[in-house]
């Protein structure tokens, strides 16, 4: 296994053309797709059908097919909503925050991570919609002049959520598309197929790469990154307000917003690694997504994992320090109550597993890194289960205590959205350049400061040919 510290953020001998060829070739040469693409896509498509089935049955029968009850009215729908939207956050962190920090290594993973954000937010958005029970009137969530004469309650975090998530989805899509315009122009100019030329021509909006256009483009892109940075922090903070603004034991704490944001980035980096490790191997992109990238992402995971673990410790501390018996009971209930195995599994997944990432050997071992990422994703799901279910199932009045478990339809919906996500991700890989080509060329230019030797010889060759033609 190669050593990340000696690896660069761009490996191999590359010229501008080989970068285009390697990344754009995946889209332009449709016959060359590797077998794992078909297998994973088929699995994703199959699970998507499970989702459609679960949705259809839900729309027919109502939310009664789910395991939700009184007192646990939130259940899987909210667990999965928070889990998915958290996964999306790493994409914006990579594309916006690391851009503002001038971290050049983000260039090879931002497109990919932004796509992940979009699809994760799509999956997330489905859950609260279905949880309303009547998704066909979901537009009631938005303020519009209705004949009913009523308006949404703007003092409720649930309405803040509608604005936060829809703004996040829209801004992420804009950011992603703006990043794609110059690459669509490259694809338009490289394509030999008439259909591809027309489609990419429309998508590129006639981008010519004029110096003035680039100037405005970079200004807009940078400010958009500056806007996305507080936006992404606000989204998961507002999601955490859904809990923290209530008075339920275990929810009513001020640590929730930062703890949620750290957990979101933690889960998101795990998902980026789960996707990047196999895909870079299948598509020969190891020159662009190097061991160094994986190493940095693993360190991000470790760092945010420690923040999350600190959150767990502080929750326990607050429960004790508050002197509030409901808070204290809630904590004891987590440790030794009916769901105690899930709590301890959570501590193993999210508190202990990431500690292996301190070791450079583990960060270099792709199988280990992949496994840890999967474990972290499971851990983050358990965390949301713990927060949503354990605070609700035993609150103030023992007479209203209850138990909760997901039904087969809860699981079908959840696993179905994983299929939906995979399906979208693999369509994206096949039809859109998955690494930002112009930023990689910019990176090559910045690293080398001159044209690589290979390109110089090629250019000399072409100049000679042109001279011959002219003569």
């Amino acid at each position, binding site marked *: 296994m190669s050593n990340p510290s000696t690896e660069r953020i761009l490996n191999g001998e590359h010229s501008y053309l080989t970068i285009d060829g390697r990344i754009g070739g995946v889209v332009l040469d449709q016959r060359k797709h590797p077998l794992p693409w078909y297998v994973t896509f088929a699995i994703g498509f199959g699970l998507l059908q499970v989702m459609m089935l679960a949705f259809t049955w839900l729309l027919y029968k109502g939310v009664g097919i789910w395991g939700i009850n009184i007192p646990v009215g939130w259940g899987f729908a909210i667990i999965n909503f928070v889990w998915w939207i958290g996964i999306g956050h790493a994409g914006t962190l990579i594309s916006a925050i690391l851009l503002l920090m001038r971290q050049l290594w983000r260039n090879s993973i931002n497109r990919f991570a932004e796509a992940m954000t979009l699809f994760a937010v799509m999956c997330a958005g489905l859950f609260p919609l279905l949880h309303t029970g009547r998704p066909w009137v979901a537009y009631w969530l938005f*303020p519009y002049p209705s004949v009913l004469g009523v308006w949404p309650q*703007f003092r409720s975090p649930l309405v803040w959520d509608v604005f936060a998530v829809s*703004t996040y989805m829209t801004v992420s899509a804009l950011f992603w598309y703006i990043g794609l315009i110059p690459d669509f122009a490259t694809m338009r100019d490289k394509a030999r197929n008439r259909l591809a030329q027309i489609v990419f*021509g429309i998508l590129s909006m006639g981008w*010519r790469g004029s*110096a003035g256009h680039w100037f*405005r483009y970079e200004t807009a892109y940078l400010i958009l990154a500056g806007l996305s940075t507080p*936006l992404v922090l606000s989204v998961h903070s507002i999601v955490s307000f859904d809990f923290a603004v209530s008075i339920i034991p275990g929810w009513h704490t001020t640590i929730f917003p930062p703890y949620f944001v750290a957990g979101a980035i933690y889960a998101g980096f795990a998902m980026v690694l789960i996707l990047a490790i196999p895909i870079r191997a299948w598509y020969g992109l190891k020159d662009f997504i190097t061991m160094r990238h994986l190493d940095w992402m693993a360190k991000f995971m470790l760092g945010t994992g420690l923040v999350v673990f600190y959150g767990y410790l502080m929750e326990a501390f607050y429960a004790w320090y508050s002197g509030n018996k409901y808070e204290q009971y809630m904590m004891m209930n987590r440790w030794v109550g009916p769901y105690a195995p899930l709590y301890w599994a959570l501590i193993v997944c999210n508190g202990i597993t990431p500690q292996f990432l301190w070791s450079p050997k583990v960060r270099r071992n792709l199988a280990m890194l992949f496994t840890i990422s999967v474990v972290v994703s499971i851990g983050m799901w358990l965390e949301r289960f713990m927060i949503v279910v354990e605070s609700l199932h035993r609150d103030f009045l023992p007479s209203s205590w209850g138990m909760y478990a997901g039904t087969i339809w809860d699981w079908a919906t959840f696993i179905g959205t994983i299929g939906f996500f995979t399906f979208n991700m693999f369509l994206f890989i096949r039809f859109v350049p998955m690494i930002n080509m112009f930023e990689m060329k910019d990176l090559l230019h910045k690293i080398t400061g001159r044209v690589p030797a290979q*390109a110089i010889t090629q250019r000399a060759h072409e100049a000679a040919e042109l001279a011959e033609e002219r003569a």
Partner: protein
Amino acid sequence: MDKRDKSQLYGLLAEFGDAEEIVVAAGKAREAGYTRLDAFTPFPVHGLPEAIGFRDVLVPWLIFIGGVCGALAGFGLQYWINAVDYPMDVGGRPFVTWPSFIPVTFECTVLFAAFAAVIGMLMLNGLPRPHHPLFNSDRFGRASQDRFFLCIEARDPRFDGAATRRFLEELGALSVEEVPA
């Protein structure tokens, strides 16, 4: 092609091999007195907008205006609903509880500013524009791939077919091509 009427010519397109070369070439063309020129590159080249004499500060202002409109729209909406259209007296509490209006106001600010950024940038750039005389050139496709182009337009007062071509060739262009309008 050489005998073409000047009015039918869009300009002369010179091809360069690297980012540094085009910045130098663009600077020299400006020094030589050409004013209607533009450069086309596969990625943003720093110093190039200055070299061709491009200056624009509108985008940040548009985004700022977008953000202010968003903030006013977001807060105004909540104010109007809670104080004017549907005031609800909950135990004598105030109608305009402004701290609870902040999250939605913030989200609207970001949303409007982001739209201003994207739409403003595209409109100022004159995009979408699927057809442009430069696309008539066979070599121009490489402006989005690995080559750097400098175009001196025929409407430039100093433009002179043969002299401008010689000037561009002397700058070290790999090729110089006439682009029909």
